[in-house]
């Protein structure tokens, strides 16, 4: 990405606004004062340490002699070409199917008349908070070689491992992203447009194809690209259900943990990093600005829902089936946690929990929760500060700061993890002076906990940042100016005005940060240490050993912790009565 491209592609949306509004918006950034300069420096320093430096180490390793040999072998070696092809195929298939599924479900949710919309919505969002192995292990239990459904009911010995199983699992895991995108867009689609089309003689069907779909094109592009990145970046599922279908992420994992070859690991990371970041940049800075629908969070007018049975019945049947599959998966996890071997010996037992809650498992639960709880407020606050700097304070470089903050999401977790392993497992020594002790790995200070908190922070930060930017853009810049005009410095304004106003966004940022930290695996797997155990890695160990019951118990506990903390967080943050009047609360 060159310096000129980012502001250049942002411009079109601004150009559509009338001139005074445009000037008003950009000039909402008041003159830069000292406190802002200090905050910017601190933020840039933190981001530099947490993401730029590890990425730099990956580049250094990948461009070393042995690293570069691996990079070039991506084109020369048939095996490596196959791995790259596998990765691209997986990304494309998951992107397309996930987008389609998300769209259909969102369309049903918004446009079709049925009861139980809230329940259906929650079911569609369930996969967001799920631990990484829950879906894969449940699918193996249900549809694997000895699957409860495939073998138990139909007597078929199917092979779910490989591309089909991987696709199924990834689509089910990631479609909520597409669902949320389309739900937001459809809700904000002015019903008057549909009515105008019908009034001009268009049937429901014609209106759908000629009015609704064209307006959603940016949504299709955006969610395809997002799902593409998520799919190629995923490590947990290829390890569990990928079988012989090797992708870049799992290849890099093997290079680091099996072959102890950091140069090769970096080389695979680089190849994985490039399409991921490229696609991410296209999605964030180009596709999302092409949208003709502004998602304001406020539903636009009263919509006449689809009641015609010829359309409604098949759609609802489909929605019911998808809902059933999702519920079935989570039921499998829950039931699996409480029986000996699900599908083989369905006798009730608490052994799984006894195993999980003793010794290593117990340590992992405590360590993971504590570290996630430390990282969550840091990520939430940092995300909001960046959002505020980007939207309100910075005249120049706001696009760059935004991009830096979003890197934690754009860079695949595997790459982040390998970067951390290279960057922080040894102390940083320049000349004879130690600038930084080892933060990760067995010999690190605090048992490697610092590196894990940093990974959690950098991975969770973008969601808070995005939510914060969206919320801030809805707040009239003159509210900030009023505060300045009454004598408040930039930082005072942030503390007394901005933060209270974006409280709901802050809350959702926090919740997401926590859920993401608790359930993240791919970066963590490279930097856990014997002193600091992480649940997701323990789950992987149980799955690898074939002890699915223990894995299910872990998943159940993980879900319970996530849901409990999310509930508590929303109680704490919503508890403040001032929140009721804030901008986002109306959404």
């Amino acid at each position, binding site marked *: 990405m060159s310096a000129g491209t980012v502001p250049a592609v942002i411009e079109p949306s601004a150009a559509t606004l009338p001139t005074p509004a445009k000037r008003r918006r950009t000039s909402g950034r008041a*003159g830069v004062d000292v406190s802002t300069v200090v905050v910017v420096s601190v933020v840039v320093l933190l981001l530099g340490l947490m993401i730029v430096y590890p990425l730099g180490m990956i580049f250094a390793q990948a461009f070393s002699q042995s690293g570069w040999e691996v990079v070039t072998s991506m084109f020369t070696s048939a095996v490596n070409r196959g791995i790259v092809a596998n990765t691209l195929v997986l990304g494309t298939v998951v992107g397309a199917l996930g987008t389609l599924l998300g769209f259909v479900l969102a369309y049903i949710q918004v446009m079709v008349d049925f009861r139980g919309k809230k329940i259906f919505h929650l079911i569609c969002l369930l996969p967001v908070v799920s631990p990484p192995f829950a879906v894969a292990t449940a699918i193996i239990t249900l549809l694997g070689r000895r699957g409860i459904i495939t073998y138990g009911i139909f007597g078929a010995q199917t092979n779910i491992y490989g591309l089909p199983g991987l696709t199924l699992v990834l689509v089910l895991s990631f479609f909520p992203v597409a669902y949320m995108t389309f739900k937001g867009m459809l809700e904000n689609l002015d019903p008057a447009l549909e009515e105008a089309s019908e009034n001009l003689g268009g049937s429901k069907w014609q209106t759908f194809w000629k009015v609704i779909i064209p307006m959603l094109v940016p949504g299709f592009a955006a969610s395809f690209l997002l799902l593409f990145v998520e799919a190629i970046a995923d490590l947990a599922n290829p390890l569990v259900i990928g079988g012989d279908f090797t992708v870049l992420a799992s290849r890099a994992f093997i290079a680091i943990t099996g072959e102890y070859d950091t140069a090769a690991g970096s080389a695979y990371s680089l190849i994985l990093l490039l399409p991921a970041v490229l696609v991410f940049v296209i999605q964030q800075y180009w596709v999302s600005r092409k949208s003709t629908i502004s998602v304001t969070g406020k539903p636009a007018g009263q919509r006449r829902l689809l009641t015609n049975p010829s359309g409604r019945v098949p759609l609802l049947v489909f929605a019911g089936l998808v809902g059933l599959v999702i519920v079935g998966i989570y039921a499998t996890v829950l039931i699996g946690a409480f029986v000996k071997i699900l599908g083989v010996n369905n006798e009730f037992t608490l052994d799984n929990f006894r195993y999980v809650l003793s010794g290593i498992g117990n340590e992992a639960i405590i360590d993971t929760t504590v570290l996630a709880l430390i990282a969550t407020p840091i990520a939430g606050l940092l995300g909001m500060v960046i959002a505020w700097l980007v939207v309100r304070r910075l005249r120049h470089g706001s696009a760059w700061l935004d991009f830096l903050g979003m890197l934690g999401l754009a860079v695949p977790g595997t790459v982040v993890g390998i970067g951390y392993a290279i960057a922080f497992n040894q102390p940083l020594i320049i000349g004879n002076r130690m600038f930084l002790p080892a933060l990760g790995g067995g010999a690190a200070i605090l048992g490697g906990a610092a590196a894990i908190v940093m990974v959690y922070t950098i991975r969770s930060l973008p969601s808070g940042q995005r939510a914060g930017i969206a919320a801030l853009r809805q707040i*009239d810049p003159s*509210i900030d100016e009023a505060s300045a*005009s009454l004598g408040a410095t930039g930082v005072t304004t942030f503390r007394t005005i901005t933060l209270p106003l974006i409280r709901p966004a802050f809350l959702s940022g926090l919740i997401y940060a926590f859920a993401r930290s608790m359930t993240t695996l791919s970066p963590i797997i490279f930097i856990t240490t014997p002193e600091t155990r992480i649940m997701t890695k323990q789950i992987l160990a149980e799955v690898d050993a074939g002890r699915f019951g223990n894995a299910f118990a872990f998943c159940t506990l993980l879900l319970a912790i996530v849901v409990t903390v999310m509930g508590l967080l929303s109680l704490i943050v919503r508890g403040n009565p001032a929140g009721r009047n804030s901008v986002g609360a109306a959404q």
Partner: protein
Amino acid sequence: MTATDTALTSTDATAEFGRISLRQLVKQFDSREGATLAVDHIDLDTEAGEFVTLLGPSGCGKTTTLRMVAGFETPTSGQITLDGDDMTRLTPDKRPMSMVFQSYALFPHMSVADNVAYGLKLKKLPRAEIAEQVEAALTSMDLVRFVNRAPSQLSGGQQQRVALARAMVMRPKVLLFDEPLSNLDAKLRVQMRTEIRSLQQRLGITALYVTHDQDEAMSLSDRIVVMNHGRIEQIGTPEDIYRHPATVFVADFIGSANFLECTLQSASDGNAIVEVLGGERTIPAAPGVAAASGHVVLVRPESVKVSRLVQAPAGAETVEGNHGRVLRSVFYGEHVEYEVDTAAGPIVAIDSDPDPSDILAVGDVVEVDFPRSRGWVLPAE
């Protein structure tokens, strides 16, 4: 000078501060399409306690100028001083000025009282003093019953009073207004502008006010600054601006105007001899008309007298000399408006409260005239 000036001196205005000076102020916005000069080398000085309005069409640079004074925009070049202190590089929070915004900009998460107390709390005043001043400000704006309400529970007019109280309670040296009334309905706008004016005079605070509404500018201001394309077209009292505009733009922007084609014979001593409407007349003229190449006579519609010719000269050209033909006749209730085709171009005339039998019809042949003192000779554009 004007009635408003006497009103000002008769108040208990004690302010000896609040003199703003703008020196060669420039603001250039750079974009990919190139640079635009939003404010183009303007100079302005206000008196202490004066109410000055920046008036002009949208995009004329008035809001940018105000925002530079407030500190929300950094001037490209030039200087802003307040009572001799340089403000140019000061951040907004360091300037002793308070702004009232078009969108009110009330903090939605704070009650009315907290909104008004906000700036005082930042000044770290003692609690009791804050409470006292907030109470006083709310009382003076008749807002006491809303103390604990959230801004969203107030009407637009009430919100704007809170915004005004919030700015006023800071005892600023200068009050800045950015089109504060444009979100209110017409009736409330008139009421609020009376209130703003009397409050400003009572407190004797200098006010810099931005609007595109000429009624607002006329009724509020001691002086009006008419801006266009980033430059100042004219600075003057409302009467000055209306009666003796410096340019055709000002004349056209303020009120409605007829520009009669004319030929200049000679000009001296603020008067010009011109040939207009088929006769030679001596009419007051803008300074510097002698140097201009083309000229027009400005006559406001209410100054134009039209009377029906009882005997239209048979066969003669009806649109000639000071004769014209009625093109349009619209009855508005309190006045009738005509458009008359004349040799000097179409002229709009307003007849207030005409006798029903005197109302002209389309096609009537009329004589057009105006009192000598109501004309104003201007350089044509």
